[in-house]
């Protein structure tokens, strides 16, 4: 059991645990509470009684789906689609409960309503281990959940979507199933108990059958009560084949519509140039030689834009504009200076303590292991560049875009639109990638400002790839120092780490709610470095917040995207110092904590991945190359993923990852096909960053411009990734992000095994 966390940040005196919980939860969920507190007078109370408005021929079943007279079931997903398959998964949960045929299922975006609030995502921000069911943790979760449900944030992130909706969706569908049976029983004049459903057909032993369409109207008129969902043992699809994703066929023929594909009558296109320096503004702009295709220009505070009949014409014209920028205070910012400030903060040895156990100050004997790790800023680089379509009539503002938080847009766009939220309509399109970028309001606010220059005209603002890359909210650069003292068996009797970097939550909340974090602790800074299930008797995890002004934001797996690299690289370095095999070392540290359920789950996925990889057997040789295997494990968003990577390194030090073996424990994989796809997705995404992702800051601006200097992993360099699902039956975990954290350390550890070179920085460069 961990001892109380202490905070020595502000006054140098320890604060109580309860106060720390309040501080951390307030900071981390600050956006939810701040926005909620600010808008509670907008009556944003969770609308538990909400029912969908059925169209002609449709019957509605609560907030979650309608059934029409032909038996088509249209589910609504309150979570936005960015490739993770959530929309189809919601439909599959309903199909399973109803025993419907997959061909009957459709899914659309849910209306923007507080009925669909995502309390789960913000609750994950609390500073407790997921497995912690103690009174303090549960009490905090309960109180916060009530508050958040009242506030009703409708958002997609934190790999929380399935966990957020599964209870209400399954209960509603189970309840609706009873109504369908009741209506059928009435129509057939037979007892309900004698009816069966199979593939959307309700049948009776007598041979009578009815389709859902035949009874939908009658069933929809009955009062809907939450039902008891099917036990997992009775699942036909879930946990087995899953349901083929409804959204995929349209993604094979060009008909799937993304935000950038919106086409409205009279639509114009805008291209934009932002001041290249962070925080800089426009001093003056001269637009020259306006062609007929260009219909207008906009001079914003920190950007200039042109509006034309085609995006290309707008981009050409705005590129030719002569702009004088007021560069501002950050013009001197550069990568070296940023890391120097991080190092200074680590040297000063202060910051906030996020986890503390035993007394790490007490002198101990044993082998000392020390390492300093660094990671760069990273861009999101969604395949679909930032874009937003706005039609502002003066009394109404309609917005079309891919986004991860439509309700936030509806609230926060009010300022840019100069209208009350009720006058703002948000249409959410499927995203060509999200990764956390599409939470942000910048694209929307600017698009509104641009569209307001042409009242009534729909204007689609598109960012060039260069603008997208250089005006991102980046995954923070970070510096981490780790030290351990090993006992006679090689185990850390003492483990301390200190990480320096900015607070994503503080910046994000500042942008969203106009209030900064005020230096309050941000759990995302150290998530993945705390609550490790390894037996570490004396431990301290400390973080120093250093915000140099580079815009930072939530990037797929957030703090885990660097803490896993730090922690799992350091575990390997400790294993090496102890002369022990990296897998055996980890298993021993977990075994020493064997009473802990999480430790057992870690051991299970490690062993599964290791077995699949043939750990302990020689790595297949590659002529002229050094080969090796590395292992890593991390828990994030309530799922635990272990990965073994095999690498081949050539004479020039170019690293190729040939194979990756993953084992994922997300509690229970509802859709195993999609679960594997999501883990693979995380691997390739994380590997792209580990091998080549680097955003440099020079003179206050991003140096990289496009995919030529911010390279992406392609098919030829992508490893074969195998994924094994380990269903521990623990509470459900997420899948969108958990595949990302382990790949960088698995590869770094493999590189060390292959070459002897210790990797202390990402991206991995050996020459």
């Amino acid at each position: 059991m961990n001892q109380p966390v202490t905070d020595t940040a502000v006054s140098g005196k320890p604060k109580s645990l309860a106060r720390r919980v309040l501080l951390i939860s307030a900071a981390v969920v600050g956006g939810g509470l701040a926005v909620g507190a600010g808008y509670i007078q907008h009556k944003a109370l969770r609308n538990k009684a909400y029912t969908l408005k059925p169209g002609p021929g449709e019957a509605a079943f609560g907030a979650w789906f309608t059934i029409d007279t032909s038996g088509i079931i249209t589910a609504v997903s309150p979570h936005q689609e960015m490739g993770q398959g959530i929309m189809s998964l919601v439909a599959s949960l309903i199909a399973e409960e109803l025993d419907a045929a997959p061909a009957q299922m459709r899914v659309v975006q849910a209306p923007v309503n507080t009925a669909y609030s995502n309390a789960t995502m913000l609750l994950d921000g609390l500073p407790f281990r997921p497995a912690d069911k103690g009174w303090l943790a549960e009490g905090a979760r309960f109180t916060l959940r009530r508050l958040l449900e009242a506030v009703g944030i409708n958002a997609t992130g934190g790999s929380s979507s399935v966990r957020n909706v599964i209870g209400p969706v399954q209960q509603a569908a189970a309840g609706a199933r009873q109504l369908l049976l009741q209506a059928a029983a009435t129509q057939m004049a037979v007892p309900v108990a004698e009816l069966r459903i199979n593939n959307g057909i309700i049948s009776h032993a007598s041979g009578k059958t009815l389709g859902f369409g035949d009874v939908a109207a009658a069933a929809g008129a009955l009062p809907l009560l939450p039902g008891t969902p099917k036990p997992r043992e009775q699942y036909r699809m879930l946990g087995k084949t899953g349901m083929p994703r409804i959204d995929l066929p349209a993604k094979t023929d060009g008909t799937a519509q993304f935000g950038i594909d919106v086409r409205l009558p009279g639509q114009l296109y805008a291209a934009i140039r932002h001041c290249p320096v962070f925080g800089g503004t426009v001093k003056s702009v001269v637009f020259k030689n306006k062609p007929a295709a260009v219909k207008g220009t906009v001079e914003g505070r920190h950007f200039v834009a042109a509006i034309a009949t085609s995006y290309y014409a707008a981009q050409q014209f705005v590129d030719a504009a002569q702009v004088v920028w007021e560069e501002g205070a950050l013009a001197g910012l550069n990568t070296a200076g940023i890391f120097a400030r991080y190092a200074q903060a680590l040297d000063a040895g202060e910051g906030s303590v996020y986890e503390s156990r035993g007394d790490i100050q007490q002198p101990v004997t044993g082998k000392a292991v020390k390492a300093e790790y660094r990671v760069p800023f990273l861009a999101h680089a969604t395949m679909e560049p930032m874009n937003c379509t706005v039609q502002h009539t003066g009394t109404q503002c309609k917005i079309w875009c891919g986004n991860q938080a439509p309700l936030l847009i509806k609230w926060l766009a009010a300022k840019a639109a100069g209208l009350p939220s009720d006058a703002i309509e948000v249409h959410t399109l499927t995203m060509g990638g999200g990764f956390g970028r599409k939470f942000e309001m910048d694209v929307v606010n600017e698009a509104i400002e641009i569209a307001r220059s042409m009242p009534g005209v729909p204007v689609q603002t598109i960012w060039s790839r260069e603008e997208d890359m250089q005006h991102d909210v980046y995954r923070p650069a970070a510096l981490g120092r780790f030290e351990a003292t090993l006992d006679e068996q090689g185990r850390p009797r003492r483990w301390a780490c200190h990480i320096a970097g900015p607070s994503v939550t503080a910046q994000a909340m500042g942008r969203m709610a106009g209030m900064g974090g005020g230096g309050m602790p941000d759990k995302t800074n150290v998530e993945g470095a705390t609550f490790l299930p390894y037996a570490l008797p004396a431990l301290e995890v400390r973080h120093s917040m250093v915000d140099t002004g580079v815009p930072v934001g939530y990037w797929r797996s957030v703090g885990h995207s660097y803490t896993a690299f730090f922690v799992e690289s350091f575990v390997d370095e400790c294993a090496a110092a102890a002369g022990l095999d990296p897998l055996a070392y980890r298993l021993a540290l977990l075994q020493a904590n064997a009473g802990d359920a999480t430790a057992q789950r870690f051991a299970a996925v490690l062993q599964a991945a290791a077995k699949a990889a043939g750990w302990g057997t020689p790595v297949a040789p590659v002529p002229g190359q050094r080969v090796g295997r590395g292992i890593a494990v991390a828990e994030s968003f309530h799922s635990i993923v272990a990965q073994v990577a095999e690498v081949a390194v050539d004479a020039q030090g170019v690293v190729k990852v040939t194979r990756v073996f993953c084992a994922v424990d997300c509690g229970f994989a509802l859709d195993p096909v999609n679960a594997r796809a999501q883990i693979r997705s995380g691997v390739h995404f994380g590997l792209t960053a580990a091998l080549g992702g680097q955003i440099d800051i020079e003179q206050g601006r991003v140096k990289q411009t496009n995919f030529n200097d911010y390279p992406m992993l392609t098919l030829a360099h992508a490893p074969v990734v195998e994924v094994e699902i380990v269903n521990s039956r623990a509470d459900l975990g997420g899948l969108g992000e958990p595949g990302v954290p382990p790949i960088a350390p698995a590869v770094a550890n493999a590189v060390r095994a292959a070459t002897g070179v210790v990797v202390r920085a990402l991206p991995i460069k050996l020459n």
Partner: protein
Amino acid sequence: MELNVNGKTAPIQSDPATPLLWVLRDELNLVGTKFGCGIMVCGACTVQVDGVAQRSCRLPVSAVAGKKVTTIEGLSPDRSHALQRAWVKHQVPQCGYCQSGFLMAASALLAATPKPTLAQIHGALSNICRCGTYDAMRAAIMDVVEGTV
């Protein structure tokens, strides 16, 4: 000038220097072909010109006068192309934004080389998929190559 797209000829008003990508998307409203980078690196804009895969984001529309342009909308009328069927069978797409480009590049490859080696596949498909659908993509392509879709 006139443009021949997916078997139909249409007059084009755009300036002849306009890249084919933007003529397709903004003049003809054929939005299946996507914009990803504008420098011919990502491949999201891949179409076929006389059956050969071509990135369209920097190709002036004047350069395809008199040629046959095929976009994703013209790959099949009903998702029946073997690659499209394999893409669904192996659940390839995730966000889907890059997939039109991959399908046009892959279909051009298979039309010219029905049994490509892995190296030829890698050479033809240098497109970027940010969601990392590469494993499913390999399986789908091999299924088509082996005639087992």
